[in-house]
């Protein structure tokens, strides 16, 4: 039987049984529109309210009404950037973000630039960390928002969120963080970390696709970007509530945050075992990202002398799912914007592959994967005009 191993948990995860059980009744039993006043609607609203409470608890928000459900991480990011920029345009039209953000943030910023806003894209150091002196240097009188992701999706580097939030508030600037990869991976406490807006997604933490949330601290001015029914999500986010999705998200985030320490320990063990084995069997590679201030679930490796997509394709033919941000998978043909921002050469960036671990990976899975990697790397190096040892 062909073996199939999923090492792409940073792209998406399976829906866990607990989450599925939570969702199923919302499809055909509690199917009312949460906006309806009758009992069917009230039952649905009760589900939404419970999920909202769970999200609030998971990130330690002060009030449940600071959680707004969205269609996912992208909408949450788009809304945070556009909504805050628009609502605060009378105070200034300058935004600060980083070069390694997800495109949901970068492209929202690009949209703002078209509208006449100015955006500063901070560079990062070799580990993918935003440099705080640079941030201080770029702050202006008309800066209204700083948006820096908590955990990078490609290399797993964890930013100094608390410090960045503190700097933002010292200058009266709002702070948003894209925490899509951070939830379940690091402890998030929006009050302690002084976060004003925080984006979340369900499907990265064994919840369903198509649902996420934006935390907006009470008192933060934000314009809506969706227009429709005025009583959904307190008039800020129109559209009939995705009750099954929201129910699943609530359950998923509750489990993810409750188990994050134990899951992290498991994943760290697997990651270390993986690296140890890889070092035994493969030569000439580097791990991209921060050596310790990083998410254990993400392991970004550049194999010298060969190209990422061909590695991914050969692994796929061996039943192993990994991801690459190299030129050939995207239509841009350019190497990953994250690795480039970290100062990694094109040659090395092109050879990068992202392995992202879940808790369901066993040591025997890792043994199989590493053996396959060794075969694939040897095969591709044999036909590469670039000598790996010379990089």
């Amino acid at each position, binding site marked *: 039987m062909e073996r199939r191993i999923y090492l792409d948990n940073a792209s998406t995860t399976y829906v866990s049984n607990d989450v599925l059980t939570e969702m199923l009744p919302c499809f055909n039993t509690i199917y009312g529109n949460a906006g309806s006043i009758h009992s069917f609607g009230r039952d649905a609203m009760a589900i939404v309210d419970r999920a909202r409470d769970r999200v609030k608890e998971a990130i330690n928000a002060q009030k449940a009404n600071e959680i707004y459900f969205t269609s996912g991480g992208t909408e949450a990011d788009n809304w945070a950037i556009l909504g805050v920029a628009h609502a605060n345009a009378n105070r200034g039209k300058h935004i600060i973000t980083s070069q390694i953000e997800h495109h949901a943030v970068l492209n929202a910023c690009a949209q703002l630039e078209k509208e006449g806003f100015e955006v500063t894209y901070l560079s990062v150091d070799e580990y993918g960390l935003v440099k705080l002196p640079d941030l201080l240097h770029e702050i202006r009188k008309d800066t209204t928002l700083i948006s820096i992701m908590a955990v990078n999706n490609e290399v797993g580097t964890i930013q100094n969120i608390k410090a960045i939030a503190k700097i933002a508030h010292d200058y009266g600037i709002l702070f948003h963080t894209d925490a899509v990869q951070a939830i379940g991976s690091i402890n998030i406490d929006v009050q302690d970390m002084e976060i004003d807006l925080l984006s979340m997604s369900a499907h990265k933490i064994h919840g369903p696709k198509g649902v996420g949330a934006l935390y907006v601290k009470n008192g933060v001015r934000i314009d809506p970007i969706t227009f429709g029914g005025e009583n959904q999500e307190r008039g800020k986010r129109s559209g009939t509530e995705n009750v099954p999705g929201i129910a699943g998200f609530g359950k998923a985030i509750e489990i993810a945050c409750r188990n994050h320490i134990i899951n992290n320990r498991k994943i760290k063990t697997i990651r270390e075992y993986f690296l140890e084995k890889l070092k035994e069997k493969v030569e000439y590679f580097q791990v991209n990202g921060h050596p310790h201030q990083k998410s254990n679930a993400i392991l970004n490796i550049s194999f010298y002398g*060969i190209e990422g997509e*061909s590695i991914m394709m050969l692994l796929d033919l061996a039943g192993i799912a990994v991801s690459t941000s*190299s*030129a*050939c998978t995207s239509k841009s043909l350019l190497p990953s914007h994250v690795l480039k921002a970290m100062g990694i050469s094109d040659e090395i960036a092109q050879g990068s592959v992202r392995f992202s671990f879940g808790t369901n990976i066993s040591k025997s899975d890792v043994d199989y994967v590493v053996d396959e990697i060794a075969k694939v790397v040897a095969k591709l190096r*044999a*036909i590469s005009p670039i000598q790996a040892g010379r990089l």
Partner: protein
Amino acid sequence: MYSKTVIDRFQNPRNAGGMHGANAIGQVGNVACGDIMKMYLKISDNGVIENAKFKTFGCCAAIASTDMACDLIKGKTIDEALKVTNKNILDLLGELPPHKIHCSILAEESIRAAIEDYYKRKEKSIKKANKKVEVDDSNM
């Protein structure tokens, strides 16, 4: 995303590897775009491509394209090989996604680069031979 032929050529390339005794080597592409292709040819004195091999740094489509390019020019004369276009490569591969078409174009260019190298080497060896003749003359 990829046709069966592309996957097959990528997984089991027929012409991969370097070549001892190649008398024409051409390299095209750059790492920024993600592909480098190196074509090795053995061309006989009467201008027939006896063997063609390649080494490629790049994606699935790049490897499959160069492999197919080698097949297309083997046994052909230089003039015939110069007429091979990316369209011929694409026809044999079945299909490539739109953003991968450049891989077939690059493979076509690698053929030309190798043939160019062949002529350069030839020119050099003729010059060398002439020089030798001159030197021999002066010694007399």
